[in-house]
């Protein structure tokens, strides 16, 4: 029963439902307040623990506060102008985007591939394998980062051993400016593909079998079916995954903290990590707050762009 209702969920249907509700029910003012009151706990938590600190950051971003000193001197837009004119800022932005792009594309592409490969419903073997592939998702990043640090180790790491089978020279994976970032992406992809796969499979199972039957009768090849039925009907799921993984990749921190500390030569100095070191190791809390605001605006704008672009391209069944 719950399965069916959730499957019935379609944007059109829910719109219709909302419309009918507003006609049928006449809400008194008290009723409206009662409805609102249910949102209050969430709004309170967010206000106190999220929006207040964020607002405070806006204030700090106009000061030269060093968190170990009581004085906060107002410096106007100085923090912003300095950041925006610093090559380090653009470098860090580039690192963040590069990481995000690789991470999102690879996680989704491989996740989809795995979904196509492993979407066999009536097999216990496949169910077991899906469980194993999902496993990295719930292994903590601290643990994953430690294991991969060991695998990437220049002298005793497994990866250099594997690479040597193909006659390649050993590489200091985490200590080489050109391999460190991809090495971090690999960890994130490893952790994330299982989740993407499960969601894609859930999406695939939601596609009515009749579509494929009709396409088969019309003589459409498997590939054409994938392109014309599977992909378009998976697009809401894809959008969900793109946006959530985009947001989390833009905020990459943990793996950098454990594995590279932003190095070597700032090759992995992504923005959130930079904010953290700026505020805490260099004690430039004011400037770090300005960077917070810049990052916030960037993510917000790009997320909105993704929504707007996708609005045209996302298909909803029914």
């Amino acid at each position, binding site marked *: 029963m719950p399965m069916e209702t959730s499957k019935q*969920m379609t944007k059109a249907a829910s719109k219709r439902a909302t419309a009918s509700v507003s006609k049928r029910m006449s809400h008194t003012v008290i009723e409206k307040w009662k409805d609102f009151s249910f949102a209050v706990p969430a709004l309170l*938590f967010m206000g106190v623990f999220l929006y207040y600190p964020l607002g405070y950051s806006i204030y700090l971003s106009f000061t030269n506060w060093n968190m170990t000193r009581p004085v906060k001197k107002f410096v106007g837009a100085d923090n912003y102008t300095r950041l925006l004119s610093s090559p380090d800022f653009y470098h860090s932005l580039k690192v963040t985007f590069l990481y995000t792009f690789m991470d999102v594309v690879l996680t989704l592409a491989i996740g989809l591939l795995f979904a196509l490969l492993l979407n066999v419903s009536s097999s216990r073997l496949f*169910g077991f394998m899906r469980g194993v*592939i999902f496993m990295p998702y719930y292994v903590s990043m601290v643990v994953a980062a430690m294991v991969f640090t060991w695998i990437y180790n220049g002298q005793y790491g497994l990866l250099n051993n594997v690479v040597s089978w193909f006659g390649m020279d050993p590489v200091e994976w985490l200590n080489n400016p050109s391999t460190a970032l991809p090495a971090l992406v690999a960890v994130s992809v490893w952790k994330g593909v299982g989740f993407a796969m499960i969601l894609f499979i859930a999406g695939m199972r939601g596609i009515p079998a009749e579509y494929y039957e009709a396409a088969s009768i019309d003589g459409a090849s498997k590939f054409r079916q994938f392109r014309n039925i599977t992909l378009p009907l998976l697009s809401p799921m894809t959008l969900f995954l793109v946006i959530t993984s985009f947001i989390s990749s833009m905020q990459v921190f943990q793996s950098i903290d454990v594995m590279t500390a932003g190095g070597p030569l700032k090759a992995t100095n992504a923005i*959130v990590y930079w904010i953290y070191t700026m505020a805490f190791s260099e004690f430039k*809390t004011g400037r770090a707050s300005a960077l917070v605001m810049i990052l916030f605006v960037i993510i917000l704008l790009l997320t909105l762009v993704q929504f707007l672009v996708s609005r045209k391209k996302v298909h909803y069944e029914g």
Partner: protein
Amino acid sequence: MKDNYMAGSAKNRKAMMTLRIIGAVIVTLVMFFPVYWLLISAFKTQSEMRMAVPTFWPETFAWQNFAEAFRVIPYARYFGNTLLMAVGTIVLQLNVALMAAYAFAKGQFKGRDTLFLLVLAALIVPEQVIFVPVYVMMSKLDWLNTFWALIVPHGASAYAIFLLRQAFKSINNDVLEAARVDGAGRFSILYKLLFPMAMPTIVTMGVLIFISSWNSYFWPLIMTNNNDMRVLTVGIAMLRDSIAGNEAMFFNVIMASSVMAIIPIVVVFTVMQKHIVAAMANSTFK
């Protein structure tokens, strides 16, 4: 003719299936490999860790790595702390999200959609950029080094509210209307009617919250300053700093402590895997 074709197709299908199984097994093995490597590294001796050609099976099982990890990390205590933090977070976050999702999906009030956007925007704020004011606040409340500081600031999750709202929106209003006519209040509609109907999403949400709470590192690291309140992830990181510093010398012991940190969650998932994956497949993610 027709029979022949059918036979060929069946054969074909069987061959395809075999290929698929082979492909899937390879993929699974590759994905599992780092976990396998974690496990066997935890049992290797110091000298075996440092062989020019790594071994794929420990020569001897160095159980003393675990003894060493237990010596440095008060495992039972940290395990309890982690569990309490995770359970507390689930209970709080789920209830807050259920209520909010109900308000945003089924409620009628002014500014509903604007407020919902405000909730969603929370997704893009990383905790590394807002923790200083929260830390100061926790200190003023005398909540540092208590579970309050670990749980309460995570009371509202935009992710949970979003997904539960989607699930509630997919539930037909006629059902609610009927309950309302029968005189059911909001709480009973939410907990007696919507709750069971959105069960897959709620289970999924609970699982996701559990995963992220159990594995959280940054927040408990910052919010606790004494040995008694630490959680497993922080314990491992501290163990690394404590026994190895920047050196990779004791990676076997670090691996052993990591194994101990993930065992509980792996057990939970292995036992409940069928239900969890089914719930995920059935929950509303769009």
